[in-house]
């Protein structure tokens, strides 16, 4: 199979800080590849190296067969980059932003206008084409950033946290678009801290933590790797002070409260269900629902990185706040 990305022993060091530590992976052509990890895991530094924005300290990197170090301009020409923060020119109109992107990527003059028009229509921005991008909403800016990244019809698209901070409608639109682009043959390299998003979209996922890749596989295999634990999700008509009581239940190794439900990590579901029925009776509770859950990608992530997804999301938000304050 042809490789869209072929990464060997890629390392990036900033002074004493090792941001990316000797990572190796491949991405097949036509694949949606997820890069999942918490803030500070080295995701953005990796993307910056993969897209030729910064040189690796060591290691090799080929994009669609082209060496990024030796022939960066040829390699960069076949990729589109959507960074985490929308980076269009606020002072320019939507139209001018797209035309400028087309000029940078060498789109022939007679195709620029046609392509810009098509993309503005596709992203629902056609009626605002002459407006300053600075007056756009966050979702519209995001769509324009993606449109600018697609102007030269790249074969590889890098999406860095594409739906972060967007409303439900814009997020859904971008996810559907990602799927459509992939159906049409584009390779997608997606970084996200939304585990569910990675699970829905990606054919393979690399989990990263502290600059290292801790696992690379397809989502189902990653989930299967943590199947030694089973999860029972139960909800009662009352929720107060139940987490501690449930934790003392026999056969249950861990209990977490998720909304009005409790998740019990157990070795054997059949042993625990009767105990839960007894528990409800003894405490004067009614069982509203009880389900056996398969391990999720989130469970696999927690198992492999030792981090909780909540921590990851919090770190991300803190990072953004710090960046906006800076």
């Amino acid at each position, binding site marked *: 199979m042809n490789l869209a990305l072929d990464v060997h022993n890629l390392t990036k060091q900033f002074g004493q800080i090792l941001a990316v530590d000797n990572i190796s992976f491949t991405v097949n052509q036509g694949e949606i590849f997820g890069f999942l990890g918490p803030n500070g895991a080295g995701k953005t530094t990796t993307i910056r190296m993969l*897209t*030729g924005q910064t040189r690796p300290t060591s290691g090799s990197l080929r994009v669609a067969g082209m060496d990024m170090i030796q022939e960066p301009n*040829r390699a960069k*020409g076949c990729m589109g980059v959507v*960074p985490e923060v929308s980076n269009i*020119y606020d*002072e*320019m109109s939507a139209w001018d932003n797209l035309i*400028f992107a087309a*000029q940078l990527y060498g789109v022939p003059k007679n195709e620029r206008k046609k392509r810009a028009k098509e993309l503005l229509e596709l992203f629902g921005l056609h009626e605002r084409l002459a407006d300053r991008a600075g007056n756009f909403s966050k979702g519209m800016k995001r769509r324009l950033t993606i449109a600018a990244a697609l102007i030269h019809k790249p074969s590889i698209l890098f999406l860095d946290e594409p739906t972060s901070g967007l409303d439900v409608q814009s997020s859904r639109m971008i996810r559907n678009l990602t799927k459509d682009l992939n159906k049409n043959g584009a390779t997608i390299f997606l970084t996200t801290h939304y585990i569910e998003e990675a699970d829905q979209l990606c054919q393979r996922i690399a989990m990263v933590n502290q600059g290292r890749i801790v696992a690379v596989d397809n989502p189902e295999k990653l989930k299967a790797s943590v199947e030694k634990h089973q999860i029972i999700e139960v909800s009662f008509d009352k929720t107060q002070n139940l987490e501690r009581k449930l934790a003392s239940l026999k056969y249950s190794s861990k209990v977490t409260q998720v909304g009005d439900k409790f998740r019990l990590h157990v070795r054997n579901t059949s042993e625990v269900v009767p105990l839960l029925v007894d528990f409800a009776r003894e405490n004067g509770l009614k069982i509203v629902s009880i389900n056996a859950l398969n391990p999720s990608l989130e469970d696999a992530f927690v198992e492999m990185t030792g981090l909780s997804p909540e921590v990851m999301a919090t770190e991300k938000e803190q990072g953004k706040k710090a960046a906006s304050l800076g």
Partner: protein
Amino acid sequence: MARAWADSLIKAFYIAKKDAKVYYFKAPNFTYGLLIPVSLYLAFSMAGEISSKLIVAGLTSLVMLFGTTSIEAVAVVLEKQTGTFERLLAAPISLFTIVLGKALAGFFFGLILAGAVLFPLATLSGIVVMNPMLAVIAIAFTSLAFSALGIIASAYAKWVPEAQMLSNFLRFPMVFLSGTFTALETLPSQLQVVARFLPLTYSVEALRSSVGESAVTYTYILDIVVLALFSLVLLVLSAKILEKRIA
């Protein structure tokens, strides 16, 4: 090879056009580019008599210095802050093309400012610009060298105030050491040596020759050659510094 250079130059022009639209061609920038040099000249002309030829030559050089560096120094920083610089870095162009594009925007802005000062002032003062072609060449290389100087300040800075401070650090000593307000020969001999390392010295000298303040000799051509060298060296240097800063 030639095709690659042509492609690089075309893309640099696109960047310059974008920069002109986004940063340069706004009324406050024209005002600022003219305001400080004119104020400086008014202040110094009150202290002593300055010939109109000196005013025309010095003021033309100063509007280019202040006009180009003021915006150039913040243009890269602003792009880094808003993330648009990443757009340029991710595009299939070299860092030198980006620097060249940025410098070209400042170059054209400097040309316009210089044209707006030199020719009207010369006409009003009854001064004849001798060999206008050489004057335009001197102005062009001055503008390019100062644009590159602005990029150097911008490459070192993380924030706009830092860039402004750095560009002032480069500009103001030059204003007083380059013989802008007086003849270079009136400076102490050690400072005359320092002046020879400053592009403004050669710009003022060349423009003085062009308005007949000093004789048009081989030094006029030499000034232009030195300005061309400054342009080239400062452009390459700014690209190298920027490369190091973003690594």
